[in-house]
C-alpha cells in the first residue's frame, strides 16, 4: 500500500496480544458463538469475516465487554479481562454508524474518553489537537457530527477511540456506510494509523475484499465457529472447508470420484468427462466421491479435446473491464464460470473444451461435507 511508507513507531506502545480461549456465547437457547479460540499477535490486524448471523459481531462485543460469555476467556497480554466491565477494559471501538455523540462537537467527542478518565485542562486540549491532526480534521473542531460527511464522521470516531490510547482497537463494519471510493481511502487511512501506533486490531466485516485488503489474517466464521484462520492468500488459495471455499471469491464446483491415490496426489475422474491428477489431502481415499473447486481464472478454454479437458456448451460471454467472463455448461449440466483477460480471448465460441490452467491450484473436498 503506497500510503503506508515505512513509518517510525515512535509513539507506539508495543501492541498487545489478544487471546480468545474456547469462547461460547448464548442468547437464550441460541448459541451465537460456539467454542471459538483465536490467538492474535501484537500489532496484527485480524478480520472476522462471515455472513450475517455468524457470530462475528457478538465475538467483538464480548471482547469490548458489552456481552458476557457463558464459557471461555478473553486475555490481553496473557491476563484475563473477563471480570472487567466495559468501561475499565481500555478497548477502543468504532461502530458501523460511528455512534458519535450528536449533541457534542468534534472536540468534545474526541475529549470524551480523556475527560471520563478525569483528565482536565491543556493536556486534554493538546491530545485532542494531536488526534484531530492525525486524522486530518484540524479545521473541523467546532462542528457538530451532523455537519460532517460520512468519511469525516468516521475519522472523528477513529480519533475518539484512539485518543485514550486503547490496548486493542475494535472496528465493527466501519466502512460499510461509506461509498466505494471513500471506503478505499479510509481503509488505507486506518491501516496507516494502525501501523503507526502498532495497535492490535480486530475488524468485523462481511465484505471479503475489505478483509483481504486490510487484514493480516482472516478468521472466516460460520454459525458461531471459526472455519479457517489464516492469511488472506492462504484462505483464497487453500480453503480448508467447502464453506470457506464458497464464501471467499467465486468458484466452480465439479463433482467427481477419486479413482487412484499416490503419495500426495490423487487421480480424479470428473463426472464432466476428464481424468485429472491433482494434489489431494490425506483424508481422501480412492473411491471417495469428491467436489473439485476451481477459481474461474484457473480454467482455460481450448478448441481441442485432450485427456485432461472436458467438453462444454458455451453460453454468454460478458466483458467486464479488462476481463471477460464466459458462462458455460458441462455435458452433465454443471454451470461454469471462466475468466480470461479480454485481450487474449479470440472471438467466437469455437472453443468447446475446458481444462485447468497450468498453474491452477484446485481444492478437493469429500462430497459428504456438503
Amino acid at each position: 500500500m503506497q500510503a503506508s511508507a515505512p513509518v517510525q513507531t515512535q509513539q507506539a506502545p508495543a501492541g498487545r496480544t489478544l487471546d480468545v480461549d474456547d469462547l461460547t456465547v448464548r442468547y437464550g437457547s441460541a448459541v451465537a458463538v460456539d467454542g471459538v479460540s483465536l490467538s492474535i499477535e501484537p500489532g496484527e490486524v485480524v478480520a472476522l469475516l462471515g455472513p450475517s448471523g455468524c457470530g462475528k459481531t457478538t465475538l467483538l462485543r464480548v471482547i469490548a465487554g458489552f456481552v458476557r460469555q457463558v464459557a471461555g476467556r478473553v486475555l490481553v497480554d496473557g491476563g484475563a479481562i473477563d471480570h472487567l466491565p466495559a468501561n475499565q477494559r481500555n478497548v477502543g471501538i468504532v461502530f458501523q454508524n460511528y455512534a458519535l455523540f450528536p449533541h457534542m462537537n468534534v472536540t468534545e467527542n474526541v475529549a470524551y474518553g480523556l475527560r471520563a478518565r478525569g483528565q482536565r485542562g491543556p493536556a486534554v486540549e493538546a491530545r485532542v489537537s494531536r488526534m484531530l491532526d492525525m486524522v486530518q480534521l484540524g479545521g473541523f473542531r467546532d462542528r457538530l457530527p451532523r455537519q460532517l460527511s460520512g468519511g469525516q464522521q468516521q475519522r472523528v470516531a477513529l480519533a475518539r477511540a484512539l485518543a485514550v490510547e486503547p490496548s486493542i482497537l475494535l472496528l465493527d463494519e466501519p466502512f460499510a456506510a461509506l461509498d466505494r471510493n471513500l471506503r478505499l481511502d479510509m481503509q488505507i487511512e486506518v491501516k496507516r494509523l494502525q501501523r503507526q501506533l502498532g495497535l492490535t486490531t480486530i475488524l468485523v466485516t462481511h465484505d471479503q475484499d475489505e478483509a483481504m485488503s486490510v487484514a493480516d489474517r482472516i478468521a472466516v466464521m460460520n454459525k458461531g465457529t471459526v472455519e479457517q484462520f489464516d492469511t488472506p492468500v492462504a484462505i483464497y488459495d487453500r480453503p480448508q472447508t467447502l464453506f470457506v471455499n464458497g464464501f471467499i471469491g467465486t468458484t466452480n464446483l465439479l463433482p467427481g470420484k477419486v479413482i487412484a491415490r499416490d503419495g500426495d496426489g490423487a487421480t480424479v475422474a470428473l463426472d464432466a468427462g476428464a481424468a485429472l491428477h491433482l494434489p489431494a489431502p490425506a483424508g481422501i481415499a480412492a473411491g471417495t466421491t469428491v467436489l473439485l473447486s476451481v477459481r474461474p481464472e484457473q480454467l482455460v478454454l481450448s478448441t481441442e479435446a485432450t485427456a485432461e479437458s472436458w467438453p462444454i456448451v458455451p453460453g454468454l460471454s460478458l466483458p467486464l473491464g479488462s476481463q471477460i467472463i464466459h458462462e458455460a455448461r458441462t455435458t452433465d449440466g454443471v454451470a461454469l464460470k471462466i475468466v480470461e483477460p479480454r485481450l487474449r480471448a479470440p472471438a467466437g465460441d469455437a472453443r468447446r473444451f475446458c481444462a485447468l490452467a497450468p498453474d491452477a491450484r484446485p481444492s478437493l473436498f469429500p462430497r459428504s461435507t456438503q
Partner: protein
Amino acid sequence: MGSRSLGMTPPSLRDTSPADGGGKRFALAEWQLALPLALAFAALFLAPLLLLVGVSFFNDDKITQPGFGSWVKFFGDPFNYKVIGDTLLLGVKTVCATIVVGYPLALVYLDLGARLQKVLLFIIIMPLLLSVVVRTFAWIVVLGREGMVNQVLIGLGLISEPLRLLQTELGLVISLTQIEMPLMLLPLISVMSRLDPNLRDASAALGASRWRTLFTVIVPLSMPGLVAGCLLVFASSTTAFISQTVIGGVRLIYLPLLIWQQSLVVYNWPLAAVASLSLVVSVLSVIAALSYLGRRSSGHLHG
C-alpha cells in the same frame, strides 16, 4: 404523487392518491383537510375565549356596565396573587415529582426486553383508561385517616397518630404525580427509545461510568421528551379542577376552584372571566418559557 414516492409517503397521505390518479378536481390540498378541525376550533374554542375577554370588561355581575372594574377588583386583592402563586407552585411541584419518579422508570423501560416493555407500557397507559374522578376517589381511599398509607405506617409502628394527608398540598401532589404520570412518561419513552443504543456502549468503551453516561449522554439527548412531558404535566396539573377540589378540599384554593366559586356560586361572571384569563395567561407564559428553554437545549440535536 408519483408511484415511486408511495413507499415513503405516510399512510394518511397515501389514502388520497387514488383521487389524484382519478382526476385533479377531487384532489384536496393539505390545508383543506384541516378545515373541519379549524372550524370546530374557531366555534368551540376561539369564540368562547373572545366572549370571555368581552365579559371580563364589565363592572357588575349583571353584565350591564362596561368598564375595568373587575380587573381592578381582582388584581387589587392580594389574596388572588397568592392563589395564582399557589397554582403555579402546585404545577412546579407536580412536575418535579413526576420527573423524579418517571425518569428512572423510563430508564428501566429502556433496558427491558420487548415483551416486558409492552407490559410496562400497558401499566403506564392504564390510568388514562380510567376516569379522573375514579382515580381521584381511589386516592381518597389510599390517603384518608383510615386509609392504606396510615394503616401501614401505624402497623409498622412508625407513627402513633394517623397522618393528615387529605386536604394538604402534600397529598394533592402525591395523587397528581400518579394521575399525570402517563403525560410525562409517554413523550419521554418515545424520545429515549429512539436513541442509538450504541451511544451507551460507545460511552462505556471510552471509560465512562454509568452515571457519567447518564448525565452527559442520555439526559441531554432525552431533553426534547423531558420538556414535552414537563409542559403536559404542568398544564394538566395546574388546571386539574377535580383532583384539586376533591383531594385539596375547600381549604386549598387554586385558580380553577376560584373560577368555579365566582361563576357558579357567587354568579360574578366578569370576575370569573378575569380569573380565567389570568389562569390562561400565567400557565401559558410558564409553558412558553419552558418550551423556549427546551428548544434551545435541543435545537442542536435536530436543527
